[in-house]
């Protein structure tokens, strides 16, 4: 019996030690890590794509994909990745959210694709995709999809508005401004108190006017603030951070940005928007309008077929602005810098990255996940001639934005601290404290800059 116990303990020890030392990066394979859940359409589409690669290239290194589901801000997956960096076990290829690329490039964890990848292939990506993957003039990341945000409104609610207000809402191929957007929400609020309209089903059901998804920010989706709202700055001639990715003074607190934040604050100060919205507020008719991501479309079609959702372009702050400004960007594939440029495996790794992001993959991802293709040639797969007019309108708007006005988020080594602090110390404070006065907002921005400057010291060494 004693011997049995000793043997059992010895086996436990050996198994534990073996478990701790397991190597995942065998040289005869190419390992990919992604943030997608294996049973999510995104995870399945990657798995299918890898299977197709392995079948098409039996004589090359086989690709193995491993998924580590991400939580709100990418944690879970990012924690796993950071742990791999400290133990020098970074996989050959892995995914990163577009804005995170700069900090991983700066620290030498990921390698550039310049000099290995075919420039014609690179030129096939949309401008915003190239912009988000480029750090200091070098390309590091290949986005497997783009994204987009527009404004959606509930047609039943808008029908009740006076004609002069309805005219403020543009058609799908017209631009409009945040001021027009605000006037529409103001008019909808009046419908809620007007005796003639307040008891109508679509009005009675309203709990807020516009859904900004600010509830998701405290749950860890800090990127929402930067993703949804920096276009206010851009379309007013401002920026979040200077081109060096670190300078904030006279940039984040520019008069254009303060004006944009005051405009944003007006929605909350007047109770047209709420810091915590009901779940699926727009989908369930509790919000008349929404700053809506592309993923709304398939959800609304599948799960809320009775909602008459209309879509218009993302508004500008300054009507005369002509540059790119609409939200874009998504997760992308990067390669580990572990392999030297002249290592034959490096070329194979980049070939796999191309396979995972080429025109064919882009089109497949759209069909599997409703993801906006990040490649120019594949955007045409978006069908805007279906028998569903709401679908056609929404995709037409997003398609236009991807092709013409999408802009990548700031490239900064200070990510994600930059975006989290922006979300928490400016956007959430404005929303939760219902602030619209310029002085308070200036103070929020000043405090944020001080905090960020302190943190950014380490990058300026």
């Amino acid at each position, binding site marked *: 019996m004693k011997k049995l116990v000793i043997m059992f303990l010895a086996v436990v020890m050996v198994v534990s030690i073996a478990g701790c030392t397991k190597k995942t990066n065998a040289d005869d394979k190419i390992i990919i890590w992604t943030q997608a859940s294996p049973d999510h359409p995104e995870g399945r589409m990657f798995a299918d794509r890898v299977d197709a690669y392995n079948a098409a290239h039996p004589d090359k290194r086989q690709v193995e994909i491993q998924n580590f589901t991400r939580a709100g801000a990418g944690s879970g997956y990012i924690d796993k990745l950071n742990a791999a960096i400290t133990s020098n076990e970074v996989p050959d290829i892995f995914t990163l959210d577009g804005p995170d690329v700069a900090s991983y490039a700066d620290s030498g964890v990921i390698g550039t694709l310049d000099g290995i990848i075919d420039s014609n292939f690179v030129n096939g990506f949309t401008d915003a995709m190239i912009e988000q993957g480029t750090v200091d003039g070098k390309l590091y990341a290949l986005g497997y999809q783009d994204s987009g945000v527009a404004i959606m409104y509930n047609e039943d609610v808008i029908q009740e508005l006076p004609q002069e207000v309805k005219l403020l809402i543009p058609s799908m191929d017209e631009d409009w401004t945040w001021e027009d957007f605000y006037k529409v929400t103001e008019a909808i609020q009046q419908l809620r108190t007007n005796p003639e309209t307040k008891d109508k089903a679509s009005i009675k059901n309203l709990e807020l006017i516009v859904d900004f998804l600010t509830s998701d920010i405290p*749950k860890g989706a800090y990127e929402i603030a930067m993703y949804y709202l920096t276009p206010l700055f851009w379309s007013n001639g401002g920026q979040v951070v200077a081109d060096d990715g670190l300078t904030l003074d006279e940039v984040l607190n520019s008069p254009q940005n303060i004006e944009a934040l005051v405009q944003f604050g007006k929605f909350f100060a007047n109770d047209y928007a709420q810091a915590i919205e009901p779940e699926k507020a727009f989908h369930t008719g509790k919000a008349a309008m929404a700053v809506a991501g592309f993923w709304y479309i398939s959800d609304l079609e599948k799960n809320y077929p009775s909602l008459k959702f209309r879509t218009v372009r993302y508004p500008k702050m300054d009507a005369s602005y002509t540059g790119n400004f609409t939200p874009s960007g998504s997760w992308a594939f990067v390669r580990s810098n572990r392999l030297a440029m002249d290592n034959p495996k490096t070329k194979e790794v980049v070939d796999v990255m191309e396979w995972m992001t080429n025109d064919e993959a882009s089109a497949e991802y759209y069909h599997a996940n409703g993801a906006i293709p990040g490649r120019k040639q594949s955007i045409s797969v978006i069908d805007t001639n279906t028998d569903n007019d709401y679908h056609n309108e929404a995709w037409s708007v997003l398609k236009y934005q991807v092709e013409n006005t999408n802009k990548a988020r700031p490239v900064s080594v200070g990510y994600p601290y930059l975006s989290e602090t922006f979300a928490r110390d400016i956007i959430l404070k404005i929303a939760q404290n219902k602030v619209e006065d310029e002085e308070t907002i200036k103070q929020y921005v000043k405090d944020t800059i001080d905090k960020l400057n302190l943190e950014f010291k380490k990058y300026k060494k």
Partner: protein
Amino acid sequence: MKKTSKVKYRTDEVMTAYLFLLPALLLALIFIVVPIILAFIYGFTDYYLLKPDERTFIGLDNFIRMLSDDLLIQTFKNTVYFVVLVVPIQLGMALGLALIINKKFRGNTYYRVAYFAPAVLSLVVISILWSVLLNPSSGLINQLLSSLGLPKQPFLTSTSQAMPTLVLISAWSGCGYQMLIFLAGLKNIQPNLYEAAEIDGANTWQKFKHITIPGLRAVSMFLIITTTIQAFKLIVQPMVMTGGGPDYKTMTLLQYIYEYGFRHRNTGYVSAITLVFTIFLVVVSIVFKKVLKEE
């Protein structure tokens, strides 16, 4: 003078005992001792998570930075505020429930299970459920308040209400476990003490004060220490329900350590904080033990 006799063990018996201890010792070494040693080493460096090979010794810089880190100081205050509120509330609730359950009445088992149920639920699940219930516009709690003619409350978005809300939810979710321990303590009190007190004419309050409370002293001290240390380690509820907001009013020290260490990759700095926090918890435990000994 008391004479102690030493039992002699055979060598193979000693070896077997050590082998039984080995797995636990190994785990403690890997997951407790080594991390503390590493935190001590890294605490004196500028370790940035993405550049593990470029860390340099910076002396006491991280410890000096802690003194002027307003957010760190605020998270420490938030944590202490939480502990000061939650320990008496949670233990009070646990004791109250234990006293109810200790009575013999119909459906006693049902209530015992019902009160204990939140203790076995995942804290993430509890936090998500309460987030829905506390939604300012459509949450059930505010619907109830409205139906009673009371104004809706912001709860988790209010700087003054968010932490007390977390305290109550934490107390509710954790008190079931302490209730069981109190219940075990109550069962250990001799019934004849109550009978004697009744014969002497003691009322309910007097019996509680002079028999129940002293009878639960050891159990109470154990629960105070464990609940306090547990409360200092609060992280799930604020992470899931408020993200540390509004205005960092619910961000706890552990959440700060996680965010600055992992998400913002300041490994060196948070190692220093972790070291100080560990020492702080050890001191708290020693103080409690000393008080307990004196009691």
